């Protein structure tokens, strides 16, 4: 079996429901690894991610990165596109896609497609927290 790494692009560049709109570009790398217990015999392991949020003109606002194979910054971090600290890498823990989606809905006014979005994201975030390695 080819265990990867594989690349995953979600939605190309997703235009989010908001006025003015925002764009979310999601890029991940993952491997298939052996697992024991109720997640076995194999599971998907995320090995790198980029979540990039851009404004309606295509200008990057902020982005979460984790690319441990990078020749430079290997720890998970946040970039904020501001002239004063454009090159700063704000350290973060590993950020899940669910956390980014929640942030966009609660703090940026993105309109969710489903009324029970919080329940859905909380459930999948719980699985991420339980099974991440």
């Amino acid at each position, binding site marked *: 079996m080819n265990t*990867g*790494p*594989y*690349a995953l*692009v979600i939605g190309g560049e997703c235009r989010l429901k908001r006025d003015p709109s925002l764009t979310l*570009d999601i*890029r*991940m*790398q993952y491997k298939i690894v052996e697992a024991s217990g109720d997640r076995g015999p194999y599971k998907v392991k995320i090995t*790198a991610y*980029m979540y*990039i949020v851009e404004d309606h003109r295509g200008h*990057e606002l902020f*982005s979460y*990165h984790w*690319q441990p194979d*990078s*020749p*430079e*910054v290997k720890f998970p971090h946040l*970039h904020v596109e501001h002239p004063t600290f454009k*090159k700063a*890498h704000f350290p973060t823990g590993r950020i899940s896609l669910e956390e980014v989606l929640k942030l966009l809905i609660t703090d940026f006014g993105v309109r969710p497609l489903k009324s029970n979005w919080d329940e859905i994201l909380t459930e999948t975030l719980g699985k991420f927290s339980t099974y991440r390695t």
Partner: protein
Amino acid sequence: MITKIKPSVKVHRLSTNAARRLFDREARRHLNMSGREFLRRWEAGKFNGQADTSAVRRVAMLLPFGR
């Protein structure tokens, strides 16, 4: 190949050639170079010192498509 998971979600599994075309397109879009050229430079360490730019990072995330 398209696998339907839920009515509103589709997973597109790319063939090797389609994945390479996507990688090439992204390298040209963000860095004005071919995917093959990006791969050559990346593996030679030519991006060291500038790998932490948004454009390089975006293409580097798709390296499994280019290899």
